[in-house]
């Protein structure tokens, strides 16, 4: 495990991606809380229409507006926004074409949904456009309204396409308001203000997908940030027992003797169960270690988050945020 870098501290847009099922949304929320710790104001954004943030913070679905959803230690606050492409398109139409009322009618007809499916890139351009607007927005004092924006982005398989606005725009109009604004998005996403973090698990497939994503990000000239390793299980076994146990050759008599010392006189069946549990644990830990070694190839700062046996609730998010703060996130 390494720690957060100076460079990452300077980023204002933190994009969080990862293989499906790795806990991307949970990690994005914990990161937002960690960044807000010490009195900063952070916006957590989701773009996939899943209302994952609302579920995580155990509250009603988020409307298309920025709501304060949590306080962070030291007076910080986390706001949340669920961006939806249709609403973003309507926002543009209203802004540039004075299409407020008609826009709503068209939405009912399904025309907006249609326009955003017609050009698959359009949806992404609209979503990233809204994110850029949030990152750059300033308050009355001329300072940025949000100190940082955390984006719960699409999974690794789709994230580069999602962020590669230049490519999406190649298919779209060469002039007009969206074109102008997308140039600003491109500048932001490829600048030092943006870091793309990848959530991984210490299993072979998620690690391979993470490495592929790093290469793909590099290829698209996007900046990989940190690898956030989620659900790391504790290693219980003494280091010298681990390889032996993983081979299934656990010294049963020693375990039995140890248990006796502790006053546990277990029947054969229970003892066998304990041995099997231990062997499984050892195999898992060993494959975690192999995966961690493979992950080392990425050469990125790598932060580990513990597996929470009780599951993830709001309190657990604060616990994970603390781990991130301890690893230098700010």
């Amino acid at each position, binding site marked *: 495990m390494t720690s957060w870098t100076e460079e990452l501290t300077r980023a204002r847009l933190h994009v969080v991606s990862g293989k*499906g*099922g790795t806990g991307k949304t949970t990690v994005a929320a914990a990161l937002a809380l960690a960044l807000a710790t010490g009195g900063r104001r952070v916006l957590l954004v989701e773009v*996939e229409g899943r209302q*994952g943030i609302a579920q995580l913070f155990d509250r009603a679905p988020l409307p298309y507006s920025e709501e304060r959803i949590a306080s962070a230690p030291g007076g910080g606050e986390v706001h949340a926004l669920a961006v939806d492409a249709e609403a973003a398109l309507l926002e543009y*139409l209203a802004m540039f*074409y004075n*299409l407020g*009322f*008609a*826009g709503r*009618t*068209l939405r009912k007809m*399904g*025309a907006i949904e249609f*326009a955003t*499916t*017609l*050009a*698959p890139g*359009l949806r992404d351009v609209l979503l990233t456009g809204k994110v850029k607007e949030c990152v750059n927005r300033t308050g009355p004092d001329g300072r940025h309204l949000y100190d940082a924006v955390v984006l719960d982005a699409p*999974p690794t*398989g789709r994230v580069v*396409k999602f962020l590669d606005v230049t490519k999406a725009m190649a*298919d*779209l*109009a*060469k*002039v*007009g*308001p*969206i074109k102008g604004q997308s140039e600003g998005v491109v500048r932001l996403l490829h600048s030092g203000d943006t870091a793309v973090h990848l959530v991984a698990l210490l*299993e*072979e*497939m998620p690690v391979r997908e993470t490495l592929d994503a790093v290469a793909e990000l590099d290829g698209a000239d996007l900046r990989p940030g940190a690898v956030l390793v989620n659900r790391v299980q504790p290693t*219980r*076994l*003494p280091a010298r*027992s681990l390889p032996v146990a993983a081979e299934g050759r656990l*010294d049963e008599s020693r*375990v039995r*003797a*140890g*248990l006796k*010392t*502790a*006053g*546990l006189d*277990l029947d054969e*069946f*229970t003892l*066998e*169960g*304990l041995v099997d*549990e*231990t062997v*499984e*644990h050892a*195999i898992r830990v060993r494959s975690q270690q192999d995966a961690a070694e493979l992950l080392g190839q990425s050469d990125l700062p790598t932060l580990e988050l513990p597996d929470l*046996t009780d*599951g993830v609730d709001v309190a657990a998010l604060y616990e994970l945020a603390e781990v991130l703060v301890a690893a230098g996130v700010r």
Partner: protein
Amino acid sequence: MNRLDFDPLLDDLETRVLVCCGSGGVGKTTTAAALALRAAERGRRVVVLTIDPARRLAQSLGLRELDNHPREVVVDGFEPKGELFAMMLDMRRTFDDMVLTHAGRDRADQILSNPFYQTISSSFSGTQEYMAMEKLGQLVAQDEWDLIIVDTPPSRSALDFLDAPQRLSTVLDGRFIRMLSAPARASGRGLLKIVGTGFSLFTRAVSTIVGGQLLQDASTFVQAFDSMFGGFRERAQRTYELLRSPGTGFVVVAAAEPDALREASYFVERLSAEKMPLCGLVANRTHPVLAADLPAAKALAAADDLDRSGDAPLAAAVLRLHADRVAVADREKRLLARFTRAHPGVPLVGVPALPADVHDLDGLREIGRRLAGE
């Protein structure tokens, strides 16, 4: 709890199609492959259609290339009573083939070279789901297998699988493309009158945003596609009907995690609303306690004793990891009980996690045993 019993299901010759669905990352592909292997070993002639399998899983089935046709799984020492075929879906090729089947040669060329078709066939979010269904339809029509097991695309939400074909149909149906491209083509006055000035403004705005060229391509595409659209929709409709037929069953796969189970719940409700037959829920990768007679609290207290004396570090570690395991198992049981309370009629089977990744037939066979509750 109502138990999902796979062996009778796999042995029943009336079972012709099994669809494995669930949200991303829950082990759908592995489950599909393990069920197919087990069915073949129990005597069925099976084909498994996988979507984007992990490389090593594909290799274990002898799938080295994406050639869009089922190949018999031939592996040393694998001699099933029945037969096992496997394939990976090539969505672009399936779409191309469909166009070639339904449109005349000239028309087909026109469609295949249209830039809008290329966008739709490679990056539209519903295409993979649609093509998986199309391929399933083809496999059924070929009538060479007595059991077809289908994996579904790795979508975020399990429901995408049912909705995507409809979404794609709506786009290809072309009502809006025609409307949008009408002013560009001719006067289009009639249309404007019908939908009002809002639409004309919208058309202008959209064409400014997406570009006139794209609208033009879309419009050309739809005109060329029109001739085959009837056949296209009919096909989709037939596949949908197939999913409702008695020989079909849905297997919902979920991890014992809140998100995956929530998706599974939506899916179960949706299947029932659509009158599609549900076999049950696979609660994948559970961690049942293997030394059930030793309570966690007792184990922890004993571990504390041992740590204090420092005598038996190995035994202390064994006790602590047992307590971890009890906590995980309790949580999984709680989550599954919640699911069962909400859906009491849905049969369920827990599949204990293997400690390491599966990358050969032996691993798949072991998962098959666990799926069958052995």
